[in-house]
């Protein structure tokens, strides 16, 4: 029931790991992704990405970018990303 999440900025790989669900700030509004999601390419606005691992919610601030969902791999390409303190 989980899938791969990757968050990449031009400068570095910010996050890579297995998550249960992820919520993204899409250009047309927030949307959630669970496992076995259909292949999708979407723009991402400035906002917070939230993901759940083992019932724990974590959030990462993104500054615009894209997301590609394909074959249970969610790749987020952001201009910059900030991990929580």
């Amino acid at each position: 029931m989980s899938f791969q999440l990757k968050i990449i900025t031009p400068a570095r790989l910010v996050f890579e790991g297995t998550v249960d669900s992820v919520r993204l700030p899409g250009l047309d509004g927030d949307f959630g992704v669970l496992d076995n999601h259909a292949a999708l390419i979407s723009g991402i606005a400035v906002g917070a990405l939230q993901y759940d691992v083992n019932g724990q919610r974590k959030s990462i601030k993104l500054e615009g970018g894209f997301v590609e969902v394909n074959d249970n791999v969610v790749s987020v390409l952001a201009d910059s990303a900030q991990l929580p303190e």
Partner: protein
Amino acid sequence: MPSQKEYNVKIASLGNTAKVTKTMNMVSTAKYRKAQDAQGSSKLYSDQLNQVIAGLAASGGELSHPLMKTLEVKKVLVITFTSDKGLCAGFNNNLIKFVESFRRENADKYETIDFITCGKRGYNALRKTSTVVANYDDKTSNPEFETAREIGDKVQKLFIDGEYDQVIIANNNFVSALSQIPTLTTLLPVSGAEAEETESTDNATDYIYEPGQAELLSYLLPKTVNFQVFKAFLENAAGEHAARMAAMDAASTNAKDLIQKYTVLRNRARQAAITTELTEIVAGAESLK
């Protein structure tokens, strides 16, 4: 013939120089590794970006965007990448010469050729002969995406406003640690051919596009452009540190050779002094007899 003392001073000063160049070599080595790591991580991003573009291109449909518009080229903007500091052999000079010859050769062809310079060296050389629209100092040694985005946004605006018909990147292409070759790459207009090239990786996946393909493209293209600027920054940084590493290594070897040469000369001078003194003593003793 210089005296022993003069040689000693010379050798000591050479020793100090060798110390400095050796330290600089080590610093550059560390910075070079860091720049290489940055290049490695940027590859992750570019691979993914290419995949997305490939997906978009493969999905068919006419791709058109103001940034892809090919115009009759009259006004050209060149973005040059050099380092801020010297002591890196021909790294900057090669690029400046290359850019200058491009400017001279095409002076008749185009109405204007203006520059945006990244790095002090390029700015100081180019401002004498041409118009420098903007200069970015202290950014090239340790590139940040923020700077690349700023430049990218700026040139895109200039291009769309019709201030320039073509934007070219001039940087040292990082071939290996020992070889950097000055190259020109067209940044704008974005060529459709690039999208086709990446199509080779095409996967027949049927993507959902959110928002529509056209909107997505107009959102994606500026980002590709900014990323290309960033990539040029990274290549320049890796090249700069590699070039300095090599230059400082050569300088350290030269200093060591010179120290050896002067040590031999000093010993010879010392021996000559001893011989002279002995001869004088012997001559003095002879005359007393």
